[in-house]
């Protein structure tokens, strides 16, 4: 079923919209949630909450890209469920991801004062100026939380190339965040 048809079902408040969404995007959403949440039950529950979130948001929202819309909800829900403070509950992949992101932080306290909106703007500006290939790899790694191996397979390149690209992009992000003026 096409995305617009599914969205039409949401607008028509037909429950078949949930089933159609799950049929088409259930697997990738579960995969995304599983990368943050260790337990499969948690991931499935997160995906179900995603459907509920979509049901509540559509209408009035009419997403241009249904999967991106659903994935954003799913990612946010998974992040909310993730207990970063308890290392035992984190998967090794999440630990690796957070360590990699921590390497991009020049001054943690200063960035915390930046606020979500400003930080989002900085990140979007940073992503805008990145070369396309670097941006794709960076987003796959830190938005979709893909393993390096999967990114290499997806784009038909070696893992070392992916790692090198990620390393350079993190270095650029560190420089970009270091230059960011902190509002008083």
């Amino acid at each position, binding site marked *: 079923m096409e995305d617009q048809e599914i969205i039409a079902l949401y607008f028509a408040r037909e429950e078949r919209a949930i089933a159609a969404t799950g049929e088409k995007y259930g697997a990738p959403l579960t995969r995304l949630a599983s990368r943050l949440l260790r337990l499969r039950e948690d991931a499935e529950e997160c995906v179900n909450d995603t459907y509920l979130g979509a049901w509540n948001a559509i209408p009035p929202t009419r997403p241009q890209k249904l999967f991106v819309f659903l*994935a954003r909800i799913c990612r946010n829900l998974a992040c909310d469920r993730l207990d970063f403070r308890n290392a035992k509950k984190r998967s090794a992949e999440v630990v690796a991801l957070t360590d990699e992101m921590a390497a991009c932080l020049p001054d943690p306290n200063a960035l915390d004062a930046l606020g979500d909106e400003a930080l989002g703007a900085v990140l979007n500006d940073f992503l805008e100026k990145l070369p396309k290939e670097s941006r794709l790899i960076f987003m796959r790694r830190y938005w979709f939380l893909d393993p390096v191996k999967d990114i290499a397979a997806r784009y038909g390149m070696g893992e070392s190339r992916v790692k090198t690209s990620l390393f350079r992009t993190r270095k650029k992000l560190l420089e970009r965040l270091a230059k960011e003026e902190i509002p008083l």
Partner: protein
Amino acid sequence: MKKENGMNGEKLLVAMGLADERFVAEAEEERPARVVPMPALRWAAALAACFTVLVVWAVAVQCGKGAPLEGGASINSSAETARAKTGGALWLEGKENADAAEEAVTGGEEEGEAMESGAAETAEEPEPMPTAAPDSAFGATGPDAGDGGLNGTPAAALLPAQDVEGLRTQSGPATEPWSEYDAETAKTAAKLVGIMLSGEAVEEPESAAAPITLEFTFADGTVRTFRLVTDQTPGEGAGEAVDMRAFLEDSGGTWREAAFADALELELLLGYVVE
């Protein structure tokens, strides 16, 4: 986002969720024009490498077999003339002649004497040589050899380089038994990897012989040096000797190095001498 303890890796990872929708959509939808799985690529590269090696090997083998010693027959057939004219010659012996050569060496009229001579100063472990007359000294592998030899047979004319098992040189007057020696009739010659040819300058070329040194380098690192002395007396043979020097001068007067595949060039040079 949590706000305690300042920004950290976890919060920045969560903040990545603030990325614009178009970047998310781009990352989800963009695919490179050519997506070849890396394992498949590696297999293809391995196959291509194997194919290349096979092709190179086949070409190398073909080139080796296809390089006939064109002058071989003429050298042998004209050896008598060569001795009379220049006193210097070199033969490349094929595998087919190995037994005959052995028999010729061991079954000569006289026991061989060491090759150590003025013409083979640097030769290592010289083979004993028959002290017979020149004809018998060449034995079955020489210019007067029988059916198994190189003389005029098609095999001799098309002797592939890699089939060479022995080298026989003659220096100085052909009538002197010490002037002839085997470079090595053993199979080490088949492992010959290079030939260096050099000419030695002589102060009075009209009266002194112009020695030409041949240095053979074998795969095992053995280097054997031989001197090919041309009869430099004015008159007969002088013209050829001058041409040989000209050949060397064309090489800058320095050592001329040739791959074994280029042995044909050397052979032609020597063939020109004996002619």
